[in-house]
């Protein structure tokens, strides 16, 4: 059950001369939700984006160390596009394409070579159902996705990410642009998805980390200060800095 999905060993990451991550070591267990917390600019999102190599898009970004996905080094001899299929991502702001809901969700499967209309219909429906948005949009699936509310858009984004059948789901502050009702819907959804996916969620919301995550890592200035079970980190932080942060004394 507690199989390790991702193993991070000795990761150092630089943007130009600035070191954004310092010697990160951690194991992310399968079918668990791991939360990354910490003040802005502490490296949470950077580490998240290293896990599906979205940092490759930044020109002066250098990384050293090892990240193993099911034992395979994702920075060596690997097709980045296939890696990103296995490790999906949901971004901070809903970033749907200016297309219909259907085309948005079908974009991923189409990218990976599925052409059959029947199969695509099935995948789109299944993904929307999984993201608990199907009932709200099933009547206007061919309409523009941009006409939906922010919360709905973010759930479509999750559906879109699920449509390529990833194993890991990276979520970069997925609720920071949403209202409380939409936020709680997404949180319920995340808990639901845990059974089938390994989820890593970056959040600025302490309560959210407590509500959804099994494990929590606290980041500060590019380092992991503490990484333990969510319950114990919040009830009994070992490090003074963690305690100060989660009790709201800074950050």
């Amino acid at each position, binding site marked *: 059950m507690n199989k390790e999905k991702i193993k991070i060993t000795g990761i150092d990451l630089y943007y130009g001369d600035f070191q954004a991550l310092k010697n990160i070591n951690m194991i992310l267990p399968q079918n668990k939700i791991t939360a990354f917390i910490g003040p802005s600019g502490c490296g949470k999102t950077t580490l998240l984006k290293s896990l599906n190599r*979205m940092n490759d898009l930044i020109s002066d970004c250098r990384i050293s160390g090892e990240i193993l996905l099911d034992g395979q080094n994702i920075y060596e001899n690997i097709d980045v596009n296939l890696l*990103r299929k296995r490790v999906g991502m949901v*971004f901070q*702001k809903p970033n749907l394409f*200016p297309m219909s809901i259907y*085309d948005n969700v079908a*974009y991923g499967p189409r*990218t990976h070579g599925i052409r059959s209309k029947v199969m695509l219909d099935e995948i789109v429906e299944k993904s929307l159902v999984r993201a608990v948005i199907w009932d709200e949009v099933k009547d206007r699936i061919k309409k523009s996705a941009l006409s939906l509310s922010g919360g709905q858009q973010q759930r479509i984004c999750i559906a879109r990410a699920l449509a390529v059948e990833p194993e890991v789901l990276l979520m970069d502050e997925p609720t920071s642009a949403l209202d409380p009702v939409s936020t709680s819907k997404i949180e319920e959804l995340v808990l639901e998805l845990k059974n089938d996916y390994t989820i890593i969620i970056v959040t600025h919301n302490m309560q959210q980390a407590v509500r959804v995550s099994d494990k929590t890592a606290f980041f500060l200035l590019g380092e992991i200060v503490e990484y333990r079970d969510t319950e114990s980190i919040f009830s009994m932080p070992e490090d003074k800095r963690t305690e100060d942060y989660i009790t709201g004394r800074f950050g």
Partner: protein
Amino acid sequence: MAKQTSFILKSFVMAATIITFGILLFLIGYILIKGVPYLTPSLFNMSYTSENVSMFPSIINTVLMTLLSLMIAIPFGLFTAIYLVEYAKRGNKLVEIIRLTSETLAGIPSIVYGLFGMLFFVTYLGWGYSILAGSATLSVMILPLIIRTTEEALKSVPDSYREASFGLGAGQLRTVFHIVLPSAVPGILAGVILAIGRIVGETAALIYTAGTVAKLPKDLLSSARTLSVHMYTLSSEGFHTNEAFATAVVLLIIVLLINTVSMVIARKVTKI
């Protein structure tokens, strides 16, 4: 005091607007009044004779010239812009040079293009005064315009679209052609409209490359005059000033039509 300043500024802004708009109206009105009475059916006869200076062949030539020039310039311009925005690394020396070149090219007077076209396409490549030489020259002329407007259009596509596409495991090529390019279409079309405007209105670059034969072309290597050249020739000969005005009316209408049609297309494309 402040009130007074604001009043002066306001009157100045109003005056500027009225004058600009007034000149435009006057120009159009003048052309219409001078041209419309001479817009006789015989001006649209199949062939041009020195008694009846029909503009029909020139209309066909204009359409051909425009299409051919766009067919050459759009692919080159589009792909150059895609390379510059999506593929080239920032601060790349080559990119800087290409950008400087295209900016310089955009500022060169069209007569210089005409001279180049005459020396290179007409003489060196031996195409003679022809539609082909003319449209090749025009496509060199509008290339910088197309590159720059396409670049701007691509840059204005939010990076979040690209991120989302890459995040789903799409490669660079798919991202560019399925996500970025469709979103950039309105901006690209705006550039194409500007380019069409320049082609339709061009004379200097064409006189030396496409010649002034007022007949329907047999093939791409025949000389052909466009509407603007037709108008220029009529008025410089001095015998048919009224017909020149009538031609101007038709030119105006054509430009207006092109703009409207492209706007409709742009709206169709962006709507999903």
